[in-house]
């Protein structure tokens, strides 16, 4: 099943000018547990989805009180540096929509 069909919210945003953070929120514990257990959003998989080095994935936090998985990566550029494409980091989430969850 696609992650987009399991999650309620899939979003990205700056966490300060040098980090980009992704939130995947669920409205059922079953879906949350299914995605957590699949491991598909853990650091090595996440790095592969975005074509970045696994070391640039700074943290993956599974936060049960909010039925949420949060992934934070190093921004390739400081927000607004020359070459910027997304100052707020708000449109970097789309590749997560199609992640297949067993």
């Amino acid at each position, binding site marked *: 099943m696609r992650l987009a069909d399991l999650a309620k919210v899939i979003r990205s945003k700056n966490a*300060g*000018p*040098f980090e980009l953070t992704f939130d995947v929120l669920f409205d059922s514990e079953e879906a949350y547990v299914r995605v957590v257990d699949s491991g598909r959003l853990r650091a090595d998989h996440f790095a592969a989805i975005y074509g970045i080095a696994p070391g640039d994935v700074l943290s993956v936090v599974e*936060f049960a*009180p909010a039925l949420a998985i949060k992934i934070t990566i190093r921004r390739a550029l*400081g927000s*607004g*540096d020359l070459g910027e*494409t*997304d100052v707020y980091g708000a449109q970097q989430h789309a590749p997560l929509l199609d992640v297949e969850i067993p």
Partner: protein
Amino acid sequence: MLVTEEVCRLQEVKVLSPTAILGYGFPDASFQRGLSMQPDAIAVDAGSTDPGPHYLGSGKSFTDRLAVKRDLLRMIEAALAQRIPLLIGSAGGAGAKPHLDWCAEIIAECLTELGQTAQVAIIAADQDVGDILHALHEQRISPLGPVFPLTEAHITESTHVVAQMGTEPILQALDAGAEIILAGRCYDPAVFAAVPIRAGLPESLALHMGKILECAAIAATPGSGSDCMLGVIDQDGFVLEPMNPDRSCTVTSVAAHTLYEKSDPRFLPGPGGVLDLSECQFQALDGRRVRVSGTTFQADATYRVKLEGARQVGFRTISIAGVRSPDFIASLDAILETTRSAVFANFEDIDPADATLLFHCYGRDGVMGPLEPKRDAVPHEIGLVIEVTAQTQALADTLCAFARSTLLHLGYPGRQSTAGNLAFPYSPSDVALGSVFAFSLYHLMQVDDPLAPFPIEYRLMGDLHEIG
């Protein structure tokens, strides 16, 4: 004058947050409902680094003056009428001196229009370059996350450097009897937490409540940055309630909000310590209110404040055009490289290090750049932004115009459409965007005294001839 004395020694404190950013607005009905709940303070955050380095660097506000005045008129009138403090954090967005002056002028105008006077505390957050260099040499500055290593040039070239104040300077201004507190760059929760902390309520809960209130009704469902939220805090927890009856706080909406714009939802570092949410509990009181408890605060061994700085890196000119020719799109990368070479070959006196020519290719990877996994998909059209940043505006204009005209008429292998390669939506096609800034500091600085970097000025403002 000492309106805030009444707030002391309360078992429960109510803080009204009208809007997520000063200038984002709020419905009058929600605000009136908030006032009817007898709040002990009105607080609003104005700041963010989200809009990028331009606003800190240039000294301009990222919110509109008329919209800020509209919000302030209502808040000032209500706070003075109910004899409760109004606290404004991170004036003008970036919270440096020009932003503080800008917001103070709007407050003065509002007071005059309302025929009122008020004791206003203005807390500066600008940091002296000499002091920061000194801190750098004493190794009291450390990077905040994956930021570049700091050099002296980053500091000396910054047009503005601010530090984020904690609650300490705000508490001092409350103690001095300020009716309106206008803070420069400020830890977002501080203006919401100060009145509860002064009333003897736990710092941990007050800061956590501030973390949520600073975004007003964004933590509700449906969420909004332009609607009011009330926080009611006691010794053991706090309750959040949106003031618009069409919105609700749910356990999920509040818990999810703790993730927003943070790298780790469990540990939220700020001036002087870390909020620990790992044992936090969220409890629905009814369909619209959520109670939060269990937050703890671990004080750091040394008090550190966050420094933010921006420096000018040049001037920018852009040109926007579309491309529909399949043969052009098929050879896009080669065509752009040929254009780049032609530009710098034509102006051989210009050092390529003094100018940056970039092409944003919307429809291919314009949004995600190197993170785009579908870069190889072939679109039927491309939106192109030609961007030049150079040491002067004139040079940026020249190089952008030359890149645009070169690209318009460039011959490339297999070209069938020989009249022109670009579709321009505008005449003139090129736009000078002015100064370009980059973040030059995003670091932590150890300080001995949380008050020392943030001098407070007290001004009686408003309709002064009323009091002779």
